[in-house]
């Protein structure tokens, strides 16, 4: 049975963040990752007929996203800031092996974020939503941009440690 366009939109809305996160493994620059996400969405629509509705949508979407990453990489071949094709392939394999662990990170992160002070959580939100504004924030608050980035790095490292510990203790049962 063919997937309808309405169903595609619904599935994209449900999974677009996961697809974007997958793409960001290969394309750390957010703008590039979002570009590839858009291309992936178009490709998925164009290949609606090929989707087997008896199977899960997300693996199919990630598979298409992977090839869009490779296509994007070819366009940017002259840039020295894109991973080589073999490294992209290796990262994709690693991502596949870590799928279960990565899938649990979101819930663990939400729990860990609840333990962060409100001001620090807002700083994280600001950093990831509007990264170009950290310099402006530094100017406005009289802090050095360096100190704000340092604080963000420490926050991030502490969150990573918290997530890891939660997932490690979960592994022990």
């Amino acid at each position: 049975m063919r997937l309808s366009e309405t169903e595609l939109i619904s599935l994209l809305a449900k999974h677009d963040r996961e697809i974007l996160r997958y793409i960001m493994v290969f394309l750390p620059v957010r703008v590039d990752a979002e570009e590839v996400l858009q291309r992936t969405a178009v490709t998925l629509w164009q290949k609606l007929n090929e989707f087997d509705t008896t199977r899960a949508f997300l693996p199919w979407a990630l598979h298409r996203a992977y090839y869009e990453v490779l296509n994007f990489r070819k366009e940017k071949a002259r840039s020295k800031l894109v991973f080589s094709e073999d490294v992209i392939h290796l990262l994709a394999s690693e991502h596949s092996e870590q799928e279960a662990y990565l899938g649990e990170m979101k819930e663990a992160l939400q729990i860990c974020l609840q333990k962060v002070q409100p001001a620090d959580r807002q700083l994280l939100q600001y950093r990831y939503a509007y990264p170009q504004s950290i310099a402006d924030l530094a100017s406005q608050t009289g802090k050095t941009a360096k100190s704000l980035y340092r604080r963000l790095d420490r926050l991030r490292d502490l969150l990573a440690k918290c997530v890891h510990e939660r997932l490690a203790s979960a592994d022990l049962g």
Partner: protein
Amino acid sequence: MGDRYDQDWFHRLSSGELSEEQFAELNQRLRASKELRKQYVHHMQLDALLATENLHPSESPESIVDLTELVDAGVKRRSNPFPYLAGLATLVVAASLIALFVDFSPKSVPSFSPVGLVGQSGIARLMDIAPGTALDETLSLDDELTPGVLHIGKGELTLVFHGGATVQLSGPAELHLLSDGEATLVHGSAQVNVPSNGSRFALNSPFSSHVEEQSIYSLTVNANESFVTLYDGALVVSQIGEQGNSYCSMVLQPMERIRASTDSLELLEPTDIELIDRIASPPMVELNVTEKYVELVKEDRPMLYWRFDGAEPDQIRNEMGDGFVGEIWPAESRDSFSFEGGRATLYESETPRTIRLRDPIPNFLNDAFSIEAWIRPGATDVQSILSFVPESADENEPGVEHFFLFEYAEESMIMHPRNSFRFLYRNPAARTNGMNLFTRGGQRPNEWHHLVATKTGDTVQLYFDGKLIAASGVKHHTSPENLLMYIGQLRYETGLRQFIGDIDEVAVYTRPLPAYRVREHYQAIQFRNDDVPSRDEVFTFLH
């Protein structure tokens, strides 16, 4: 979770701070290491979760796919309120963050008033200034400050005292700089990091003094009281009486907080300690000697280039040819050295030990030359790092005749900035006189630094971390003697002034390196951060 070095690279990748060369190296490392790929994937997943998930989990996220392209492809459009919400969210977040951080008190321009005593030298350096922190004509970034009074209104400054302590001052504040190991915060806030292997540092308030050799703490001083919170190490806090003496003292432990006033010294109840912006302990960085660095050095054709890579027992290879080989002397002191990691590490020894040229060389110090090394002292005592002495010098005579010397000391019998490197040139070789050039002070142990001493005509120059920092004229003299070179102590017989630490990439040239070339050498080196997460991190968990 991955080691600190790799995490730092991932941070920089996410921030777009990696150069093309660094990105290529990361690409290569990812290709070669499955473990690194695993760490990378975990790191990027966390980063991506922070970037894509709403941090307030009660709200369901909107789609981030721009459906315009699907409309163009013939798919129905649905409204996406996210851009509107994003704009509103920006204002709310920015306003709340500004309210948390901004001080709305009247502005005053930071200024510095030196005390102005004869014979004073610098005791601290202005290392960092927050954007928006206005300075008047008495202050500039990288200034050396003598004892005096520092005012700051809105904004932040970071000072490094020559004794090694780092003080981040948040305005409005007034700080009295007394010496390279003491200051008084009259009012305002300061974050202090006194590193291990640094000198003792005392930051006082009008009500209390705070002294220790290794600690990280914050101090806030108001009109009638002061608060100190300790994050790492230990701190002796004393209530100060009218005469400036200690009435009573407490030893503060990490996560403890004390309130001091004219009539009390009070340990406060434990409270949630926020992750505030504190100065972290300086990371232990390792040299990453790139291929480019080695190429640059070899292009400049040194006559001697010791890299300490894969050193054979008792022999140091010269990368430029068969001559000018080094040896460990005496051979039985081999255990006082290590050559792991492609550098020479020298340990303290009760008996003399040195790395020296196996054979004397003709005196090249009469004319133009350059001597270059990467050095990391591991202690603060006076240490002779690298020296050239005449072959004919009498080993049994007290004192040492030098032509050339690199040394490091916290303090010594001669006047120089605390924790500085010394370059001595004497021609003819003697036990006195000559010309000394010093770095500016505040170079703590366990930090790598690049030193290059050159002679051009009748001028000697000292370059420090790629920059020319001192120069002086010298008299020309031609000494016919051959030279011996020693690394690690003042000659080998005495065992005095042992250099304890690391040295790498020693190069000797028979021509002066131009300034741009010294800078290129320095910039070709990369540093690796092998630091583990420091104990000064305070997590905001509520236990």
